[in-house]
């Protein structure tokens, strides 16, 4: 079987969970003898995240079964997790790598994000006409237009994969144009894969989709290449307990709730440092708010950390908290568990459906979250129990199973559309 896949980020250049999920699924599919042609937009290079020594890693360097997966770059720029207005404000910060490895500003490209989406869709259509494949698999709204164009051009069925809806990303204040794109994509597709029952509920409730059209395929966590590091954070870890926030600093992820949790924890224990890893549209606001609350001297704003350093960051932490206000899945708690970090996660998340050895609370219940965090910090036995239990659960989750479920979905779609 051969799959034409469209996604808008892919490691090593990913800033969110989508890239991680695409990588996991593609890797799993390749092990199940499925060929994948992955159509990827140009990956712009974010100026603020320039890290010395980080050079462009070719997709060949990614650990995928040889020959099974091809990644093709489309001549369009899509920056994940940007809404149209943020794109306008932020695009000057982005650069693109030329063939000779020099950085060039993005100014030459289209005016708005919808232009880029169209451009990407047109090119995907051309590929769909030229290539031979059985089914189309498109990840999240930016690629829906491309998926539909490819379906119409080739007559092959379309599966769309919903990793997040506009309702999750905006805290319930969707951009109409994005919502319309999502709705149209969902209705036009032959099948929808959602990353959780939580998200399936959103799709049914907010987009008017028949529940029978939606299959749930939970995400997993990649355990290959995992290295336990004894990192040079000794001085920091000696003097402080570390509580970690890792994710985009945007309304969906609840960074403001994290600050309120931090303030409550500091009320009980002063020897705690809070680390924010990630960037996002709320970053400035959160930094200012931390200063206003007078707790910034207990907060480390680490900014963007490259993918290959992420395990090291988890290993600094004593607790990982994910206070997302609406999290379709949430791979980060699984990554934390893999790194033997006890986790507290928002009940409003998909990942809460697949793990139990963690604390699950409402994101808004800062009081309780702080109390549970302190309990874990004060009680090594509790920590041990959570970590060991979680590790077992995580070991039972793998992308091969997720990929196998995708293949079942493909087969069902192909069977249903073959008459």
């Amino acid at each position, binding site marked *: 079987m051969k799959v034409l896949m469209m996604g808008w980020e892919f490691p090593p250049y990913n800033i969110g969970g989508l890239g991680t999920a695409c990588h996991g699924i593609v890797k799993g599919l390749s092990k199940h003898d499925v060929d994948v042609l992955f159509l990827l937009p140009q990956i712009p290079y974010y100026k603020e995240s320039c890290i010395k020594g980080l050079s462009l890693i070719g997709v060949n360097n990614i650990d995928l079964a040889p020959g099974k997966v091809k990644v093709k770059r489309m001549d369009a720029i899509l920056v994940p997790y940007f809404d149209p207005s943020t794109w306008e404000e932020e695009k000057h910060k982005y650069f693109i790598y030329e063939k000779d490895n020099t950085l060039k500003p993005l100014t030459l490209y289209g005016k708005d994000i919808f232009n880029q989406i169209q451009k990407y869709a047109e090119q995907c259509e051309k590929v769909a006409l030229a290539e031979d494949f059985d089914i189309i698999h498109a990840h999240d709204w930016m690629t829906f237009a491309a998926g539909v164009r490819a379906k119409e051009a080739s007559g092959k069925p379309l599966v769309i994969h919903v990793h997040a809806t506009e309702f999750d990303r905006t805290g319930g204040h969707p951009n109409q144009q994005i919502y319309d794109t999502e709705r149209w994509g969902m209705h036009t597709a032959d099948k929808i894969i959602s990353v959780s029952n939580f998200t399936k509920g959103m799709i049914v409730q907010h987009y008017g989709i028949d529940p029978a059209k939606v299959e749930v395929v939970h995400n997993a966590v990649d355990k290959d290449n995992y290295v336990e590091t004894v990192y040079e954070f000794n001085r920091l870890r000696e003097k402080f307990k570390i509580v970690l926030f890792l994710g985009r600093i945007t309304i969906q992820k609840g960074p403001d709730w994290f600050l309120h949790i931090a303030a409550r924890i500091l009320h009980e224990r002063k020897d705690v440092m809070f680390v924010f890893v990630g960037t996002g549209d709320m970053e400035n606001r959160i*930094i200012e708010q931390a200063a206003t609350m*007078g707790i910034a001297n207990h907060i480390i704003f680490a900014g963007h950390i490259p993918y290959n350093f992420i395990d090291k960051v988890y290993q600094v932490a004593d607790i990982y908290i994910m206070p997302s206000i609406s999290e379709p899945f949430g791979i980060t708690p699984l990554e934390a568990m893999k790194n033997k970090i006890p986790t507290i996660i928002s009940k409003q998340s998909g990942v809460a459906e697949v793990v139990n050895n963690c604390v699950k609370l409402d994101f808004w219940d800062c009081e309780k979250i702080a109390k549970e965090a302190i309990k874990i910090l004060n009680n090594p036995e509790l920590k041990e129990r959570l970590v060991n239990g979680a590790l077992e659960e995580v070991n039972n989750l793998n992308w091969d199973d997720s990929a196998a479920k995708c293949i079942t979905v493909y087969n069902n779609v192909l069977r249903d559309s073959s008459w």
Partner: protein
Amino acid sequence: MVAICFYFQVHQPYRLRQYSLFDIGNNDHYEDEAKNKAIMEKVAHKCYIPANKLFLSMLHSHPDLKISYSISGTALEQMEKYSPETLSLFQQLVATGRVELLNETYYHSLSSIFSPQEFKEQVQMHRDIIKRLFGVTPSVFRNTELIYSNHIAMLAEEMGYKAILAEGADHILGWRSPNFVYKPTTANIKLLLKNYRLSDDIAFRFSNRDWAGWPLTAEKFTDWVNQANGSGEVINLFMDYETIGEHQWAETGIFHFFHHLPEKVLSHPDNLFMTPSEVAEKFDPVGELDIHHPISWADIERDLSAWASNSMQLHALHSLYNLEGAVKKKGDLRMIENWRKLQTSDNFYYMCTKWFSDGDVHKYFNPFDKPHNAFTSFINAYHDMVLRLKD
């Protein structure tokens, strides 16, 4: 008779680098050495060296010319390291006997506001370095960014200074003129006020083609100076030295302007040049000024808001000064030095969000691309210091 009193401020901070999570606890080197070196070399090339040479030659050809400088300790250190030629030219200037040096806080800090004890220590350090490098002991004090209040005047008096400089801000002067010597209500010390109109005509408006005064020539400026004759005793022209060649590029004619100014000013028999200490000797105060709330020469507000108004600045300042007791008790000289370098006012200036979206002067001087990055780099360095304190 009207005396022209020139004072030029010379300052370069140690700019911080982007200090990351992985540095905390592992690296107590907070500065961007390459950037500091590059900027010192650039400014020396565009301003310090040519301007010093110009003044040396003018002092030679005009026996009545007198000027004064205040050079921050951090600038002097960086000259020693990155531009010895600049330092040697300053030494030659002072050796003429007609170039006066003023004292300030060594680290160009806001310690006058946050810690009187630290303030006195830094002023003493500055006295020491001036003595070491120039062999003189100043008798006039100028505080960081001309920050001034009754309290600061008292501190300066306690330290034995006979005069202190301040901004001739409208809201403290009211109907009064900056062209006289004043005294604080609280201290027995002379107060010299900047004539900000004439000073800023050179410092800010010199190259502005939309300004009615453009082009500003030495003749025209001398005419304006002469107008004060009979209604004032001293015109204090206080400005950043970097005005000459850095803020106003050589192409604007700024060197030419200064080259001709002494000759034009002295062509009027009533005019003369004086240093701040001579002004303080010569003139009696015409009135008392009562200034409770600190003023400065920065921005339209002429207050502390460029460094200490938004939540990031206030949090950073309070957090830093809260460490004073612990840092001094620990007695680690490198840490004390690092702590003091963090106090440099520029670090807080970079966090300023006032007008930031209008892309004005704050942005021009900001090594960080946004105030929030200035804050996070600062606070991450602070975390490192806290960890070392707990060792």
